[in-house]
């Protein structure tokens, strides 16, 4: 078994790499904890708490930089919190063996969002649906790289909400941020720019994680000696990673990370098969 200091150092490393690659920290830490013999449900519950800390830390700087769209985030949070409560409730009820396979399936999606940089060009949708227009799901931000104000508007708000509900279920069930999936919904369905999408996603992830934690809190799965080093470590790692993000754009780092993910997928599948 691990001790808290080793877990803290490990969490810093995972938080750092997760932040640099944009592939998330807690989603990698949970299978690592399973590898060290911790019950999967306990790891999922504690991972969910760590996500509140990391996402709040990174969301803070995005909000200050005026990139996050609080109105779009609040609208989408209605869907993600319901999804997270449903997802976390399912995890509390189901047999752990399902979680091994579901986690392996989720880790596979890390290979889909292999985006090395933010898309710089943005074309607003030609038409905005009635609900998006009524809720004022639009805005603008100052883009430092192009030195100009980018105006944008969201569309397909109901379909986007449905997508976020699904993202919330995945987040609540597996104790992850599901940030990559949320960003895809923002960009492909709601048609908002990449930078606003990533910033708003960090903001939404914190509230979604809170909804998941509200279920895990008294389910007897929340181990304080596991949660504390995870929360501290991943937060420190994410903060340092966030500061380095502008300086490091290393494709090799992503490849290394995906090799680790592959090993974790094999490990989770192995655990699942032997638990059958």
């Amino acid at each position, binding site marked *: 078994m691990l001790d808290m200091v080793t877990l803290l150092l490990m969490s810093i490393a995972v938080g750092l790499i997760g932040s640099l690659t944009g592939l998330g920290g807690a989603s990698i830490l949970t299978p690592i904890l399973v590898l060290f013999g911790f019950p999967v449900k306990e790891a999922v519950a504690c991972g969910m708490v760590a996500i*509140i800390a990391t996402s*709040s830390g990174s969301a803070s700087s995005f909000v200050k930089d*005026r990139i*996050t769209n609080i109105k779009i985030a*609040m609208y989408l949070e209605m869907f993600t919190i319901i999804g997270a409560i449903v997802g976390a409730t399912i995890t509390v009820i189901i047999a752990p063996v399902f979680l091994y396979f579901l986690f392996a399936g989720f880790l596979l999606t890390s290979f889909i969002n292999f985006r090395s940089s933010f898309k710089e060009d943005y074309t607003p949708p030609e038409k905005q649906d009635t609900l998006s227009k009524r809720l004022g799901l639009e805005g603008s*931000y100052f883009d430092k790289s192009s030195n100009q104000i980018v105006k944008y508007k969201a569309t397909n708000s109901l379909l986007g909400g449905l997508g976020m509900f699904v993202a919330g279920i995945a987040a609540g069930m597996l104790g992850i941020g599901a940030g990559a999936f949320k960003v895809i919904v923002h960009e492909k369905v709601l048609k908002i720019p990449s930078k606003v999408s990533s910033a708003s996603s960090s903001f939404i992830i914190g509230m979604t994680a809170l909804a998941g934690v509200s279920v895990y809190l008294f389910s*007897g799965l929340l181990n304080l000696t596991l*949660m504390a080093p995870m929360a501290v470590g991943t937060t420190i790692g994410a903060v340092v990673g966030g500061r380095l993000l502008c300086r490091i754009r290393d494709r090799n780092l992503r490849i290394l990370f995906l090799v680790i993910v592959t090993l974790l997928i094999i490990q989770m599948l192995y655990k699942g098969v032997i638990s059958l």
Partner: protein
Amino acid sequence: MTSNGLGSGESKLETVVSYILIMGVVISVLLEIIGISLFYRTYGNVQISQSKTVFINGQNFFVFILVQIQHLFGSQSSILFMTLGLIILILTPYIRAISSLVYFTWEKNRNYVLITLFVLVVLTASLALH
């Protein structure tokens, strides 16, 4: 540079929200570090425990907070500090939602008052009804 093209009121909300998030995370991380340090001082090791005492138990989050506050001055236990760190962490996005509600009410934006209220009611119910 003002974002979202929504004027200085929204900028103030963004500033307040930003401070709430960063303060919540910093306080929580500090409490967790104190908790881990006290754990070492008390038990002479930092092993991740599977003892029942390190698992959260209770019925209602808001009653749970009151119980922890009652213990605040009577105990210096490592578990108490870790629990307080957890409580602050949980309250951080919750207070952020309350501040958004106050802002949208002040702005008389009925749609977003309803949206924020919905989020708060669902979270409060989920935290209270277990």
